[in-house]
């Protein structure tokens, strides 16, 4: 029988249709779908928020949409675990495996069926969220100023430009050299990698905290491909250590690096939800321009130490798109992640029975998401033990750390940026990001899992 792509596609199509049908009938998924609808439509009506329209929109996007995506992810992970394992347990696979079906076709069919189902459920969630949002925003009696603020700050897609003058890595190296010279660091107690990581974390925290009289400088490069005349906003996430002092009491200046001129002093006034914004004047916001932002925490009776957000303290936002497109692209990224979870669940179901597959896959996903915290707490524990003269880490910890780190590194592309958080923050989820997610998560990661599962299915007895 010569291999024919059309025949292969026909078989995959048949299996995908059946997998879709089987998953759609599963009680677990039906319960999750009901929960999903309840969360999407019920949560925004139940949670009061801070009483502002912006707060309500955040509740809808962060909590309702975020929880819906989470519920759907869990449901699809477990459903996919059952995709192959239940077929093996109930013997259905015997009647498929004795047909001219390659194991890879079998796996791909199952996966594509689950992908189609998750796409439909996500579309329902997205359309529901958008409709609910529009209904709420355009109800009679909506405060027009608040509506304007929501439209200008949240319901749009803004490209984020972060400062490029990050010297934390070099500073950490230097600090470690100093510690070593002082005899305060021993490689046998804490590895160089761990020590650098911890020092970098410390330096970031130190950098974020600005005492009265201290200064900070950021360099922000506007990209050359910025759309012409696109509005550019400087956004600062800042808070005051003292409840009595204003976080905006410092002095700010903006300078064009290419054409050094007098620094332009500006004031940040509209502070809300821990953020302040400034619309950058068009003459400063030209493509390719690099801007320097200087901040002096001027000492005075009203001032106190302020803290900038460690990751996004100061940033430029370039408006490049609307909310509907951003929502769609966010859901595409979420769908790619769910697709990877489905692939992982199917792979687990290929190796184990359903309960074991569900447990193993859930554990690995959880470990990937939270492994970083384990390592950090382990590091702090090692510091304490070392200071007390005890062994730095147990053998178990020495073995588990590389595993967790590897998991974290592998999972990083899938979890590094939350599209839902970006959406609710008004940050652009670009087509490039969506297509990269699709290529990486659905193409490479799921592809590797598909080949691995097909190999296992080929090696496994199904009788």
């Amino acid at each position, binding site marked *: 029988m010569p291999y024919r792509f059309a025949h292969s596609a026909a078989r995959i199509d*048949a299996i995908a249709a*059946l997998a879709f049908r089987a998953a759609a009938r599963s009680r677990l998924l039906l319960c999750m779908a009901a929960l999903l609808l309840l969360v999407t439509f019920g949560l925004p009506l139940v949670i009061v928020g801070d009483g502002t329209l912006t707060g309500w929109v955040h509740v809808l996007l962060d909590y309702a949409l975020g929880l819906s995506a989470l519920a759907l992810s869990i449901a699809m992970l477990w459903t996919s675990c059952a995709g192959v394992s239940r077929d093996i347990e109930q013997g259905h696979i015997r009647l498929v*495996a*004795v047909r*001219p079906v390659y194991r890879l076709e079998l796996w791909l069919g199952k996966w594509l069926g689950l992908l189609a189902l998750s796409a439909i459920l996500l579309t329902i969630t997205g359309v529901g969220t958008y409709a609910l949002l529009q209904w709420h925003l355009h109800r009679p009696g909506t405060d027009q100023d608040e509506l304007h603020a929501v439209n200008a700050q949240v319901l749009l897609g803004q490209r984020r430009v972060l400062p490029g003058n990050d010297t934390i890595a070099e500073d950490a190296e230097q600090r470690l050299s100093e510690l070593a010279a002082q005899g305060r660091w021993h490689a046998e107690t804490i590895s160089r990698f761990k020590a650098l990581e911890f020092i970098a974390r410390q330096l970031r925290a130190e950098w974020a905290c600005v005492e009265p009289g201290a200064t900070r400088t950021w360099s922000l490069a506007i990209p050359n491909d910025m759309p012409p005349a696109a509005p550019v906003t400087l956004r600062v996430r800042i808070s005051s250590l003292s409840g009595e002092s204003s976080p905006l009491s410092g002095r700010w200046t903006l300078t064009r690096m290419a054409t050094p001129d007098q620094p332009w002093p500006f004031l940040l006034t509209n502070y809300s939800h821990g953020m302040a914004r400034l619309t950058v004047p068009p003459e400063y916001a030209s493509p390719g321009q690099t801007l320097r932002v200087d901040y002096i925490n001027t000492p005075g009776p009203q001032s106190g130490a302020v803290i900038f957000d460690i990751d996004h303290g100061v940033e430029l936002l370039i408006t490049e798109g609307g909310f509907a497109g951003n929502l769609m692209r966010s859901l595409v990224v979420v769908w790619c992640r769910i697709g990877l979870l489905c692939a992982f669940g199917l792979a687990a179901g290929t190796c184990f029975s359903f309960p074991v597959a569900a447990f193993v896959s859930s554990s690995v996903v959880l470990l990937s998401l939270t492994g970083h915290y384990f390592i950090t707490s382990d590091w702090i524990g090692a510091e304490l033990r070392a200071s007390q003269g005890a062994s730095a880490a147990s053998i178990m910890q020495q073995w588990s750390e590389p595993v967790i780190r590897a998991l974290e590194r592998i999972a990083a592309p899938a979890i590094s940026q939350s599209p839902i958080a970006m959406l609710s923050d008004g940050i652009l989820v670009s087509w490039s990001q969506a297509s990269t997610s699709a290529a990486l998560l659905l193409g490479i990661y799921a592809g590797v899992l598909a080949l691995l599962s097909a190999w296992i299915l080929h090696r496994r007895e199904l009788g």
Partner: protein
Amino acid sequence: MPEPTESAAVEIRGLVKVFRDFWRRPTVRAVNGIDLTIPRGKVFGLLGPNGSGKSTTIKILLGLLFPSAGDVRVLGESPRAVAVKQRIGYLPEDSHLYRYLPARETLDFYARLFALDRATRRARIDQSLEMVGLAHAANRPVGEFSKGMARRIGLAQALINDPQLVILDEPTAGLDPIGCRQVKDIMLALAARGTTVLLTSHLLADVEDVCDRLAILYNGKVRAQGTVQELLTVPDTISLSIPELSPDAMRDLLALLRERLGIEPRVDHPSMDLERFFLDVITKAADQPASLSGAAHTGRVAEFLRRS
């Protein structure tokens, strides 16, 4: 359509299957050195008590289990080759069909796995449903079927690709006598057009009715094999059937046989077997039309399985 060839449909040489536990320790030697040759176009019966290795052998022939030792060729190829599965049909002992799929969609799903085009699928499904007497239940989920009906739809799915080799594991289990007869007729029709049929059954009468050759397994070994005639013929004895005679004529005949041949003949009245009697009753009853929810008795083999 099966290709006429003189080579064997199935060749098994020194087949051994040892099941192992999680730690790879041997637990059961289910098949212990089987040698079998199943010629093409014949109905071959594999008999044996429970645990004799029949199902294990069949699963190895289907590529579901892997042999521990020995060589297996199915239609000239390894049973694990995907290509050979295009030419095999399989009815498992238990119904492994998707319970929520209606009968028509069940057949459509398995037909799609053979990449049959839509028109061929539709024609074959209609004919298959008609053949197994389930045309009236085409849109009922398989999960609602009785055991006999599930067996019938299982048989239909096994034949949907018009296979060259059909492997039937207990095909008549759970079927009423009409269903048994139909299945046997289908097997004979298939064999008549060159399809090889391998079946296992506990119902020895069924095997005797349809099989050209058979093998008896016990404890993973072949204990006897050959044609049915070779195995079942009682040597040095013949039976002669004649019309009913008057008592005088009978007395004269027996005296003649004793005198001329010096033998003591045994005289009895041949009786119709129960299956044939039952079928006669049902055939007469079926002439009176009535609605039914179970399987219908059509007695027809699907057209695509009749073409030679």
